[in-house]
């Protein structure tokens, strides 16, 4: 379910990574060890940030940072790597 919107995406040139700012409906409280993953809605759908609640007793407050992040996984890349590894395995076992 939609619980908020991405407010902005910036590049942190010192830490060499992207920073995503999000506005989340304050009715939803998330533990400090909540994880954020970039997911795609279906095969051709748009990307969204999926939040999965953690187990920490302390909650995230406004201005806090989520460090448990998963970047967008490019499915085609995963498949080609899988196929490459399978082929490599086949070569080594056939000796």
């Amino acid at each position, binding site marked *: 379910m939609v619980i908020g919107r991405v407010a902005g995406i910036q590049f942190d040139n*010192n*830490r*060499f*990574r992207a920073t995503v700012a999000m506005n989340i409906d304050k009715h939803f409280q998330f*533990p400090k*060890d909540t*994880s954020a*993953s970039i997911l795609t809605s279906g095969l051709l759908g748009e990307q969204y940030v999926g939040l*999965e*609640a*953690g*187990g920490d*007793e302390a909650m995230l407050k406004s201005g806090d940072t989520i*460090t*448990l*992040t*998963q*970047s967008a*996984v*490019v499915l085609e*890349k*995963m498949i080609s*790597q899988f196929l*490459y*590894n*399978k082929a*490599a*395995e086949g070569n*080594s076992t056939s000796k």
Partner: protein
Amino acid sequence: MRRWISSLLVGAAFCAAPSFAQSPDTAPDALVRKVAEDTLTIVRSDRDIRAGDRRKIIDLVEVKVLPYFDFNRMTRLAMGKNWRQADPQQQQALVSEFRALLVNTYASAFTSYKDQTIDIKPVRMEPGDTDVVVKTVINQQNGQPPVTIDYNMEKVDSSWKVYDFTVEGVRWVQNYRNTFNNEVQNGGVDGLIKTLREKNRSLAQASGKADD
């Protein structure tokens, strides 16, 4: 899959024996570099390890690798909201089995080490950061593509420890959350512990056969 895991293991073998003490000024990437060099020197020169001696590889991993991984934190993160459903005894079992899972995975990979090299990138951080990412690249021989492994490290009491890592874009501990949660939904915390034990047993046995 084995070559990929092999690279994961090479990447993970960056932790020194406790004889390497961290000063409060030890930079996380310098730490990774020093430990990788120390550990790989052993791997490359030890005849038994090169021949695939699993017991010796596990001992090496236990001494060199584990001190720099915060298994308590990793297990708590993988458990997420299910951590507090577990009593202290179950929590201890979970940490133990999750630790064994990683050791078994790495041990299997190290038996297929084939002269990979590791390239540790200078860490991009601000002074005073206590949560950083150290990026590494495993270069493989035989024309295989390089493997990227990023280490998520946290500074706790002046010591840097790994609490997660990303291999080729997939974040390890964080992704175990789904698996663990499914297991707990199906069979409770005890069900998860049982599954992990079985997994560890089969990993140890499978490699035993491979060593024949």
